[in-house]
């Protein structure tokens, strides 16, 4: 579902960074491990088309990202990629439900409130549907972030450090949650992290150094 080949990127006046290939099929899970500062976020942004690669290619659901114009790439990202950010960015002026419906709207899909409710209930935060983001606990915010990444049934879910701030039992729970949700919606799940606890839980993995 998501494949890269000889991906490389270069910041101004810095050395060329090369990344090992990422290959993850629908319903599967893949781990990208790496210490802080080795370019994990850069890879994540390359995979999601937030930045464009210097060399090599990213292909999602058969579409080579470098072939898309900026505008088409924005649109493609909204439809095919769900991103779970480390810092859980939301639009503060909107409530939980509105943060999900705006994701549908921006991806050019029909607003489907039932789909949002279903997702939130699946994630056991159905009762928070009309809450503001800043009224939620850290764990609840993480679940809303997962719900938003899933709301458009993306082909690929990219998760940035989803577990690094959590203790062992919660770490396991979140990983289970992510993998179940990804399997259910048939999406490829790529987790980018420095959290070595995940190393033994996922078979398909690469390490950046």
């Amino acid at each position, binding site marked *: 579902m998501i494949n890269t080949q000889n991906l490389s990127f270069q910041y101004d006046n810095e050395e060329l960074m090369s990344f090992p290939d990422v290959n993850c099929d629908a319903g599967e899970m893949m781990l990208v491990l790496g210490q802080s500062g080795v370019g994990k*976020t*850069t890879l994540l*942004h390359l995979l*999601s088309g*937030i*930045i464009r690669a210097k060399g090599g290619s990213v292909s999602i659901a058969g579409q080579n990202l470098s072939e898309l114009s*900026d*505008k088409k790439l*924005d*649109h*493609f*990202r*909204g*439809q095919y990629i769900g*991103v779970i*950010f480390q*810092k859980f*960015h*939301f*639009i*503060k*002026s*909107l409530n939980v439900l*509105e943060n999900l*419906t*705006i*994701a549908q*709207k*921006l*991806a*050019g899909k029909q*607003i489907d409130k039932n789909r949002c409710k279903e997702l939130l209930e699946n994630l056991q935060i159905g009762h928070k549907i009309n809450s503001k983001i800043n009224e939620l606990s850290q764990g609840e915010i993480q679940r809303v972030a997962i719900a*938003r990444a899933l709301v458009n049934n993306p082909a690929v879910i990219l998760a940035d450090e989803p577990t690094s701030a959590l203790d062992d039992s919660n770490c396991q729970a979140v990983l289970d949650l992510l993998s179940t949700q990804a399997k259910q919606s048939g999406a490829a799940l790529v987790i980018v992290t420095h959290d070595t606890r995940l190393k033994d839980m996922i078979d398909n993995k690469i390490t950046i150094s």
Partner: protein
Amino acid sequence: MSVLKLAWKNIVSNPLNLILSIILFGLGIGLISFLMLLNTQLSENFEKNLADIDLVIGAKGSPLQMILCSMYHIDNPTGNITVDEAKAFLNSGHPLLEISVPLSLGDSYKRHRIVGTNDGILELYNAQLDQGKIWAQDLDVTIGAGVARSTGLKIGDSFKSSHGFDDDADLAHDHSAFNVVGILKPSGSVVDQLILTNPSTVWAVHDHAAEDHAGHDHVHHTPPVRSNEELLQHPDKDITSLLIKYKDKTNYRTLSLPRAINEHTDMQAASPPYEINKLYSLIGVGTDAIRWLAILIAFVSAISIFISLYKSMKERKYELSLIRVMGGSRAILFMLIVIEGIILSFIGFVVGMIISHGGMEIMSKFLQASYRYDFTGWRVISGDAWLFVGSIALGIVAALIPAYQASYTDIHKALSEKN
């Protein structure tokens, strides 16, 4: 969840940030709108009250004062002239004059002037009777619609006057009660604010008062004076001025009439349009200064809208990047900020309209007292439409730079910043 709705939510979720720029913008727009509203109504007032009066004749003094006194009733008389002096112009056989209306001024009631005159004044101002009848006997009065409204006087009521425009009980004339016999329809002219009676009523009230002060106790038996012919029977009596309408404005003898009066008599003649234009140019300097001040305020407030938008755009860099990640294009970010600018300026415009129209409605009572004319805030003028267009344009312009910056936010950088 449309872009418009998102822009609206962004604004209402953080209103404190924006309140200053909205108030400032509203103040600028409000001031401009208020000036336009005042200007429109004032010039309508002046123009309506020109009422085709070609010439005013009165005692020598300031011609502008005479016009303001005799036509707008917002100043004191320059003095009086005797009927004898004015007799040529009271004669209905005068070849140049179509209408000649004498005015005898002196007293007022609750800041409404009592005018001794004849029914020619109704013809001049196109005033019509609403209820009752036209004044006939001395001490009978027919009152304008504005007088009836503000004093509550009805037909059959009686009241006592006071001297000049002062509403001072000490100056009240004790012995003469006026009787309301008629009320006029609203005409939109100064007549709405006047109390009309015979010239002889004004004389009687004054002579009576004078004799009272001198310690006498006379009763007057002069028959009421109504027409100009009757007025000519009393050559030694005073009137304040004459309002004249020519038969033919372009007749060369008509054109030389004012000069003849000014040079060969103890009276002066003044042309209302000429004096009013002089007054306009005097007032114009003041309103111009205020207008520039208002434009300056509007400009500064546009800058403050720009700063608010810029600041809130910087604070929301993550959110804006997020919108891109979720599939929104650069154009959507641009639109979002521009729409926020439009919403801000629209709210500012509404605040401005409330300030100007509400302020005008509140001030109308004071303005009415000093200008003898009905002012209202509940009126939309074409200037308001232009202000609306201008406000929205200003909001868009103020939003352009923040919108451009928002659309070119480096989302990779914004999303990787560590804090």
